[in-house]
């Protein structure tokens, strides 16, 4: 049996700021090479925490209390700092949520896009420039010369997100962590960006962890999906199975809660209190306050 690209095993973490409240509870999941895996859940589900753990950028207020994150068999959590920084930014990269703040406003796109090429791959300035032009072409930016010379504020949100995608795939990573990459975008731009991520992922054979709260986005881009609640895995499986034959009541309730423009009389069913009670019991959470 081939080893999975990523194997998270029994990962648990607490928030030191919140009186030691658990933020991840015994999370296990595996990611195969080249697959797109959705991490979905409502706020507080822990989906972003898992993404940050994979990138080695957990905030200092989150402490891992158990478990492993094996990347090609090596545990990222105990790996020496030096080895980790070799992997991060080269084998594992990020597409961030907010294209407005992820780019340095004081540096031209060229400088930001070629950093990795020069520092991690040791490319010359000239080669890096050529590669950057190619990358922008890959993400369908029509006038790459002008864009390379531009500052972030001169570009639209959708354009900036394309650049961040180009940058994430620049070094042919094995894993791209996309943390709500379309949440801040208009719906027509979102569709272009989803299409682009899928195309780049297929062209480069890259595995993608796709963090989102939107089951619609999951349906369109993820091969498999993991649903979380309060730091615990509630259900995982192939996207088609989870959407057409959800096993957990919470999964079913979430699908029924979302309004749909094509079905005016369906959707908008609040998740019943009984479902939350069951979830809290399963997770081991105390009853909610008011």
């Amino acid at each position, binding site marked *: 049996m081939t080893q999975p690209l990523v194997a998270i095993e029994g990962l648990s973490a607490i928030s030191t700021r919140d009186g030691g409240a658990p933020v991840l509870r015994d999370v296990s999941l595996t990611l195969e090479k080249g697959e797109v895996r959705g991490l979905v859940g409502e706020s507080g589900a822990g989906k972003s925490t898992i993404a940050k753990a994979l990138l080695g950028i957990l905030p200092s207020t989150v402490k891992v209390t158990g478990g492993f994150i094996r990347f090609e068999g090596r545990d990222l959590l105990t790996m020496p700092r030096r080895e980790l920084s070799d992997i991060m930014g080269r084998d594992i990269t990020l597409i961030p949520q907010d294209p407005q703040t992820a780019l340095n406003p004081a540096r031209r796109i060229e400088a930001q896009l070629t950093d990795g090429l020069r520092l991690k791959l040791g490319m010359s300035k000239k080669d890096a420039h050529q590669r950057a032009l190619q990358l922008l072409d890959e993400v369908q930016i029509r006038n790459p010369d002008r864009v390379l010379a531009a500052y972030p504020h001169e570009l639209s949100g959708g354009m900036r997100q394309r650049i961040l995608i180009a940058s994430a795939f620049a070094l042919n990573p094995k894993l791209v962590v996309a943390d709500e990459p379309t949440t801040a975008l*208009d719906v027509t731009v979102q*569709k272009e960006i989803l299409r682009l991520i899928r195309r780049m992922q297929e062209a480069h054979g890259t595995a993608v962890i796709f963090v989102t709260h939107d089951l619609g986005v999951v349906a369109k881009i993820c091969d498999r999906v993991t649903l979380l609640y309060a730091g615990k895995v509630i259900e995982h499986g192939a996207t088609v199975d989870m959407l057409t034959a959800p096993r957990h009541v919470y999964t079913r309730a979430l699908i029924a809660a*979302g*309004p749909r*423009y094509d079905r005016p009389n369906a959707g908008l069913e*609040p998740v019943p209190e009984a479902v939350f009670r069951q979830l809290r019991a399963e997770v081991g959470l105390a009853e909610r306050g008011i």
Partner: protein
Amino acid sequence: MSDLLFEAKGVEVTYGMSKGMFGHGRPGVRVLHGVDLSIKRGETVGIVGESGSGKTTLGRALLKLVPVSGGTIRFDGQDITGLSPDAMRPLRRRMQMIFQDPMASLNPRHTIRQILTEPLFLHGLATDRRDAERQVRAILDRVSLAPVTLDRAPHELSGGQRQRVGIARAVLMKPDFVLADEIVSGLDVSTQAQVLNILKALSKEMGLSMAFISHDLSVIRAVCDRVTVMRFGEVVEEGPCETVFDAPQSPYTRLLLDAIPLPEIDDGWLTRPAPSLETAA
């Protein structure tokens, strides 16, 4: 009495315009180019569009929260286009607003009790403390919040609870009209459904008219009777929800609808070309 509560015709809004001396003012940027919008009594009209479409500006123009540079706005038969802030004041109670971020619109140093009772006194809607408390408790129950909420501060509540406080505050004024601007865009779906159901039920019960601004066509369809689709400061399509959603006439509406990812498997969706914006007709 006309059955129209709001009637806006040819509304223009220009930001950053200055008159200047000797006619050398700055022309400014026009963000609404002659928009028409009517809202009947008891009707909820959705205003949808992407960023920069002018949907928020249109909402604010209706309430005269931004200067209107052209067109007319009538409220309950009265032309309010040129009314001064003083002249607008008696109408203010009748037009309420619920904001996108309830945390930013609720005073963080006040308890929910203060936030809800003070406007009642300000508008002379409560005779004394006991009357105010009674009204506030009744509305709290309607938005499914426990009475202990009254002693809490906004930051102690969840996003959904704060948004329900926002709704309670607006409807306590017994308004004729409520402007709701992206009020569920920061909420989780499970919370969103509850907030929207409460708002729908209350508006029906009270015969409220609403302008419901959202970027989310699915949310619009769930709560609105009619919808106005905007793009670049113009209305591209308007009509009853059934018509606009089931048989959209504008290529732009079709493009918007096509771009919504529905939670069902559709393998061709990502690669299928988007509907063209070129009008065939």
